């Protein structure tokens, strides 16, 4: 008998069973709490997968293209081009078995009507290589042969070819820098390790043909080197490095791959941060939810204590409840995350980022679940601790005093956490544009501390808002309004905490949107005031701060210049670099002919008279943008060291440009300088001004006709279109982040539903009395809806207030330090949308609890103890 595990009628065999039972006893609460974890873990997992996929795509890319390479010679961090002679100097280094140079461009395939596709899969990265040299990549020929010089042949990636129904011998029409070309498929290859660039194809041409078609007559973008047997790649690397100049980067494929992964690190941190917000808010919802249950179960917990339960055992039952929820929530979270990852990837692709299909990894799953469990444990820790300290006499007297939520101590601690961390957050996020991931981690940490401060300060904003809004509500609906307001006020801690989940997520959205709209507004103002160009000719979807670019040919430039309606054509050459000269931040080197460009756009220069700036530029000087100059403390009269693959020189700073283009992370120079230092001989954009305003229409027509016929991969944007293109790129980035934060707003909605259903439970007796007195179900529903509205509006409005406050401080800070050009522009339509969203959330969140309340039978409600 005594061998039995449990007595008859008993199924639980430990307090864990009790945790399970209490989860089952409150299914709605359990589902909602787990829902917060689902969303938090889901977004975390989605972003982890996204990051993993980006990294694995780059990893695959490097493994494939450097499959048989020992050392890679390129411009610093792959930017810029090497002079043609470099290859001889490399070959002269002892230990070099073979060196093969390459140039690259992007072509777009044309459809039968001659139009260039806009999608990723319409594009193909083409490298020109010397086919007499050994193969340096891991590509394996699977059909046909290598392209033969002088035949305009191309060898294609088999998968991409198949997608476009191309096989050996077929011909394809592509848009290239020098116009439309018909190429013949000489062969097909695959990378045995697999290479999926999310639709982008790859191809290979013979170097002579490539030079002609890409209009890159005398440079190498990269040189791949193989070592003699017995020569270690690292040894060869240092020998070659010693033989070449400072601006040249000599690396092994491994370090190159690692370098690219490191360049992604700061993006990773930002993505983790935004996805972490949902978990933070989720953890906070859990804190709130468990606080409510501990308060509600005071008598039960007191009984456990009276029966001799030590505090830690009581605390453990609460924590176990949390962990159970976290584990169940995580399973669904992983499923959600897998879905979110493919959505995020699609968004990334639409920004022009080459990414493969979702790369699943066990590590990402484990990390997401661990983060979810951790957030849950952190959220449940305080309520569990409090539960453990419940006095046994609570078993008899029940209840518990409602904590005082607007104490002076709370305000002080809140401010002490909030103010410095807000200042630090602003400085770290926007202060110096460093791409050191440590800065991102610091920014994330300070922002999280700032959130904690906001949570503490929330009651001081939320509760007055509730009071403020309750007054008109009571006037409009005396009975229901009164009850709702009472409900929200009798549990101020709960009301404030529930609203705080919305407050935090929405304030991030508001800060994001305000910074974005201020950037956009400031850039638009600059374009309106300084840009007097009529047309911008550039590759479809061109991003100055993007990766490899097709480039424009000199022929196109001549063709446009020859049009009778053309007043001026000015070239702009932009080179994205990971380290701008004089600092460690990412940015763009811009080359233009100062006199010619001046006739098109009237960018303001400071620090020296205009003519001196122009002359200085023409003579090899540089002009940093004001923001960059301020961040790096650069002044006219100082010098910047330019180190490019084609040359190294110390350039005088001859002026400061008042431009916010590319976030002001720009150093400008002449076409000659960017060519001789960085090997940049092809134009990135052409900016065109009509000979007279009257000729503008005709010019646009002529240019469009030319592009359509000969350069379908390019587009000509009017001033308005260019403005939109520029601001879209800024908005796109911030919207992407806001979409990630959006999931945290959903967590806030769950929080409101949770609180309301708790409120229904607590007010069962009151509702019963109302029903017994003849109140209709509809009236009961309205009471609940009103409470919900009060909370959600208080949350959204305080989110707007907090977001604007933070944004104002940060933008003022940016003006004072890193972005002097920036003005504040409010995202009015978004703010209105959020306020409307507050009402919608309030109504939606009330549906379920209101149904429950209305369904209560008058008698049942009265019997509830």
């Amino acid at each position, binding site marked *: 008998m*005594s061998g039995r595990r449990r*007595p*008859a009628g008993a199924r639980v065999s430990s307090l864990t*069973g009790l945790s399970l039972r209490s989860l089952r006893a409150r299914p709605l609460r359990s589902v909602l709490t787990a829902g917060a974890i689902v969303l938090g873990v889901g977004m975390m997992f989605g972003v982890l997968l996204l990051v993993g996929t980006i990294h694995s795509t780059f990893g695959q890319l490097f493994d494939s293209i450097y499959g048989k390479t020992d050392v890679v010679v390129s411009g610093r961090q792959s930017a810029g081009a090497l002079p043609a002679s470099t290859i001889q100097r490399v070959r002269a280094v002892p230990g070099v078995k073979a060196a093969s140079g390459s140039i690259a461009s992007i072509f777009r395939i044309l459809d039968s009507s001659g139009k260039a596709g806009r999608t990723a899969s319409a594009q193909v990265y083409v490298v020109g290589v010397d086919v007499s040299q050994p193969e340096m990549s891991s590509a394996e020929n699977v059909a046909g042969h290598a392209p033969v010089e002088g035949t305009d042949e191309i060898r294609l990636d088999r998968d991409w070819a198949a997608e476009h129904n191309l096989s050996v011998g077929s011909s394809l029409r592509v848009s290239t820098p020098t116009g439309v070309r018909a190429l013949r498929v000489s062969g097909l290859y695959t990378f045995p390790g697999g290479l999926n660039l999310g639709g982008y194809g790859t191809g290979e041409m013979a170097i002579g043909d490539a030079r002609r078609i890409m209009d890159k007559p005398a440079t190498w973008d990269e040189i791949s080197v193989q070592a003699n047997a017995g020569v270690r790649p690292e040894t060869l690397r240092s020998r070659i490095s010693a033989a070449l100049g400072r601006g040249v980067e000599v690396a092994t494929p491994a370090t190159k791959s690692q370098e690219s992964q490191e360049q992604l690190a700061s993006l990773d941190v930002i993505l983790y941060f935004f996805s972490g917000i949902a978990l933070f808010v989720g953890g906070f919802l859990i804190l709130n939810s468990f606080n409510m249950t501990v308060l509600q179960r005071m008598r039960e917990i007191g*009984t456990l204590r009276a*029966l001799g339960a030590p505090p830690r055992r009581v605390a453990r039952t609460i924590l176990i409840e949390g962990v159970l929820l976290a584990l169940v929530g995580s399973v669904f979270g992983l499923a959600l995350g897998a879905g979110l990852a493919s959505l995020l990837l699609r968004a990334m692709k639409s920004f022009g980022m080459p990414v493969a299909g979702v790369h699943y990894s066990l590590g990402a799953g484990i990390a997401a679940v661990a983060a979810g469990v951790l957030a849950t444990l952190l959220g449940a820790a305080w309520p569990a601790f409090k539960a453990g300290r419940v006095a046994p006499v609570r078993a008899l007297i029940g209840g518990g005093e409602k904590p005082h939520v607007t104490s002076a101590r709370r305000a002080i601690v809140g401010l002490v956490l909030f103010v410095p961390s807000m200042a630090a957050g602003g400085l770290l996020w926007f202060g110096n544009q460093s791409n050191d991931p440590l800065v991102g981690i610091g920014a994330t940490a300070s922002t999280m501390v700032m959130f904690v401060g906001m949570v503490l300060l929330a009651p001081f904003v939320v509760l007055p808002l509730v009071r403020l809004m309750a007054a008109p509500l009571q006037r409009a609906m005396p009975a229901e309004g009164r009850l709702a307001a009472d409900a929200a006020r009798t549990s101020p801690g709960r009301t404030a905490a529930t609203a705080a989940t919305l407050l935090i997520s929405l304030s991030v959205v508001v800060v994001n949107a305000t910074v974005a709209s201020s950037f956009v507004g400031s850039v638009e103002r600059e374009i309106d005031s300084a840009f007097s160009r009529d047309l911008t000719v550039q590759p479809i979807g061109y991003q100055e701060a993007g990766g490899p670019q097709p480039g424009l040919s000199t022929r196109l430039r001549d063709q446009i210049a020859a049009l009778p309606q053309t007043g001026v054509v000015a070239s702009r050459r932009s080179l994205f670099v990971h380290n701008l000269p004089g600092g460690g931040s990412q940015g763009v080197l811009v080359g233009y002919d100062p006199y010619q460009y001046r006739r098109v756009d009237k960018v303001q220069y400071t620090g020296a008279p205009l003519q001196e700036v122009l002359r200085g530029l023409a003579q090899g000087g540089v002009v940093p943008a004001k923001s960059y100059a301020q961040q790096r403390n650069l002044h006219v009269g100082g010098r910047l060291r330019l180190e490019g693959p084609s040359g190294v020189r110390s350039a005088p700073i001859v002026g400061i440009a008042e431009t916010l283009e590319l976030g002001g992370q720009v150093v400008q120079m002449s076409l000659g300088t960017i060519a001789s230092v960085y090997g940049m001989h092809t134009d990135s954009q052409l900016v065109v001004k009509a000979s007279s305003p009257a000729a503008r229409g005709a010019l646009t027509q002529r240019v469009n006709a030319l592009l359509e016929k000969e350069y379908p991969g390019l587009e000509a944007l009017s001033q308005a279109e260019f403005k939109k293109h520029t601001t879209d790129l800024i908005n796109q980035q911030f919207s992407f982040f806001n979409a990630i934060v959006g999931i945290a707003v959903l967590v806030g909605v769950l929080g409101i539903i949770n609180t309301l259903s708790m409120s229904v439970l607590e007010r069962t007796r009151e509702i019963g009395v109302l029903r017994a007195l003849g109140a209709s179900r509809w009236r009961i529903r309205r009471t609940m809806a009103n409470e919900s509205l009060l909370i959600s509006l208080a949350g959204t409005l305080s989110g707007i207030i907090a977001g604007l406050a933070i944004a104002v401080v940060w933008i003022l800070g940016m003006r004072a330090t890193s972005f002097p050009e920036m003005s504040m522009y409010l995202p009015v339509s978004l703010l209105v949308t959020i306020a409307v969203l507050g009402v919608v959330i309030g109504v939606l969140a009330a549906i379920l609890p209101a149904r429950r309340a209305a369904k209560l039978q008058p008698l049942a409600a009265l019997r509830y103890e």
Partner: protein
Amino acid sequence: MSSAETVPALEAQGLCRSFGEGVSAVNALRGVDLRVADREFLAIMGPSGSGKSTLLHILGALDRPSAGSTSIHGRRYDDLDDRALTRLRGEVFGFIFQFFNLLPTLTAAENVLLPALVAGEPPSRYAQRTDELLSLVGLSDRAAHLPSEMSGGEQQRVAIARALLRRPEVLLADEPTGNLDSAAGANVLGLLRKLVDDGQTAVMVTHDGAAAALADRVVFLRDGKIFSEIPGGDGARISRELSRPPAAPIGVTAREAA
């Protein structure tokens, strides 16, 4: 040798307990001396607010006195730390509440088993005892029922079984029949009496003279002090004692005493 006779099961000396501070301070107990012998059934009576519950909480290690001492079988426990008091609650005392305080999500058997779970002991060790206790309180057939499926009297009997699970030295009950109708109340009281007859020591707070009559001894509390003491069994004397001036009108306070 003779310690069994001389050392009381439960002893309190000079117990004081005040709540709050300054002008709003309430002195719930003002020097209570009390001895409960082994195998004795003691009833505590008194008007509402006289300090009965406070006294029982202190005796049951649910609360600590502001002054004075308590000991169980000669072992002092008023000065123990929280951890030790927690152990006492689980091992030495069995508490019965007016509102039963069964956990609503657990079955009758599971509620009986709860003190073992709470102490982290393997339930297998208590399987047989749980069955026995449920049959002792006459609820063998309700083992798998939830509290919501049982009457008040049945719930209170489950609570008694729960209090007995770990063979407490003293059983403490605060108005155990306060929430029951007279038949159910009589049933519960009969059960308590039987337990004492079988060797259990018990202290019960009640405002019901008939209930007190079943006890071996009755002490009367008034304004935080023991006011008088009589042997149990004599119902008439108990009602006389209760109505002695300056006693509050019992009819009114009895209900408030809840």
